[in-house]
């Protein structure tokens, strides 16, 4: 083969390689964006759950001891959120900032404060207590969904980032490897 045809072949190979790299990078970017979106959804619903718990505690529909425990756990959760907001960026590095234990604790207190009988009574009474309970449940369901979808997305990113083309060409840049978020998010009173 002549030099010209060698050059043509080389250029073609380079073009294909370039296309493949940019395609892989775009795919990875899309996955990172999905994780980010899922994490901010989780963040938003965790906040809503804590707010609804506070509301329930202050509704006067549950006993003061349970209410106090609930206020303590919910404000702990909200404090952690606020604390992070003053730093540059809540989602920096795409992790949950170690809030898992706080959220598990809130779930535990919700279970303790809302056994099946208590939830039934609250529903039967109606009024602000029932409305707050409904909001706690709605937020709780969304926390569950958001956490599940987030973890799915994280696993996809982890899989793609372990591919050789991604590691050799450093397609992930300086983005931290996202981690799954694990805490107890079972729904109370069901």
């Amino acid at each position, binding site marked *: 083969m002549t030099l010209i045809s060698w050059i043509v072949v080389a250029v073609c190979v380079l073009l294909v390689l370039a296309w493949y790299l*940019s395609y892989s*990078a*775009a*795919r*990875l*970017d*899309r*996955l*990172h*964006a*999905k994780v*980010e*979106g*899922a*994490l*901010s*959804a989780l*963040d*938003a*619903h965790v906040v809503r759950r804590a707010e609804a718990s506070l509301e329930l505690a202050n509704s006067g529909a549950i006993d003061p001891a349970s209410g106090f425990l609930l206020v303590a756990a919910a404000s702990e959760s909200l404090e952690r959120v606020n604390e992070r907001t003053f730093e*540059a*960026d*809540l*989602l*920096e590095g*795409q992790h949950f900032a170690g809030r898992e234990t706080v959220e598990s604790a809130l779930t535990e207190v919700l279970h303790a404060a809302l056994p*099946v009988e208590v939830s039934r009574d609250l529903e039967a009474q109606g009024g602000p207590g029932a409305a707050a309970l409904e909001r706690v449940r*709605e937020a709780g*369901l*969304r926390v569950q*969904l*958001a956490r*599940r*979808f987030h973890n*799915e*997305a994280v*696993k*996809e990113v982890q899989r*793609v980032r372990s591919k050789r083309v991604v590691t050799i060409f450093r*397609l*992930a*840049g*300086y*983005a931290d490897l996202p981690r799954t978020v694990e805490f107890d998010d079972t729904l109370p009173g*069901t």
Partner: protein
Amino acid sequence: MKIGLVSPYSFDVPGGVQFHIRDLAEYLIQHGHEASVLAPADEGTDLPRYVVPAGRAVPIRYNGSTARLLFGPVAAAKVGRWLDEGDFDVVHIHEPLAPSLSLLALWAATRPVVATFHTSNVRSRVMQAAYPLLRPSLEKIHGRIAVSEDARRTVTTHIGGDAVVIPNGVDTAAFARASKDPRWSGAPGRPTIVFLGRIDEPRKGLPVLSAAMPAILDAVPGARLLVVGPGSAEAARARLSEPVLAATEFLGALSDEDKASALASADLYIAPHTGGESFGIVLVEAMAAGAPVLASDLAAFQRVLDGGRTGMAGALFANESPHDLAARAVELLGDPTRLHALSELGRERARVFDWAVVAKEILAVYDTVAGGSRQREVTRLRPGADRRRGGEHT
């Protein structure tokens, strides 16, 4: 919220997936959302006004049978236009792996995607071969829903990852409203047993029930068996012995209202299905109407009946065993308190499958995935937000 729903199957022919999409779209519209359904359909077919026809489906061999699917560049362009014009907050794709509009929509989607997996019947060899092709598209799904545990297992084994189980909705209110009909109600010593399903389809289990009837009649001589469902009664009659024949009434196919009141009147509903049921809508309908349920112990049935902390909302017998079926039925018919308790538990359990409950959960999924991308615009306003990702490749 603006929601785009994609159906892989034509609305000209009835089917579970199409009914699900139709009911969901109507619920969404009733509750103040905007919904548009993209589905294959012939030009000029009479469609609900929220359905956008995407063109004529072509019959083609796929997955071991002939399916009517829509694909090709013209369909792909149509999907792209629909997505652009719709400007949806969430695109909800049904059966994302069906090589039809669903796969095309997944390929073209730029908005958050929710996908519902309906089938539990996927050829694993096909999936393995097509996997590298499909994987990047599948990664676009933000939230996965499976309609049953079986469908979920298909997702975990063939695609990897997990899905949230949200069952198919049933209009339980229509069954709960049904009133008793004196023709089909039992009297002391003359309880009524109801069977529902095609008479000539053995997997609906009429042969098992027929074989159990002599033993049931020995213990409860006055029992009446009401057989509701289409199919030729002649063949079924020929299999029955004289005393069983005398106790059996073939009602044929009934209207939805009559079916509901037959269930509401029944002292006991028996579901002797021998297999092939992935969900068990029929049990939900019976429970909603307040009929105490005795069902074969298929995995799908157990899951429908099992209310977790509230306990089993129906009784079970060993599948395909007329002997066990008869023993359980006699036991139940002799215990009115237990029958009453089962009826109450069943009504309670059926509520979980009501459209209102199911649609709320689907909306929660929409909220979660749409919330994620809306939230992003807010977080971008924070200082330093734009250096969050490595970003050098963008």
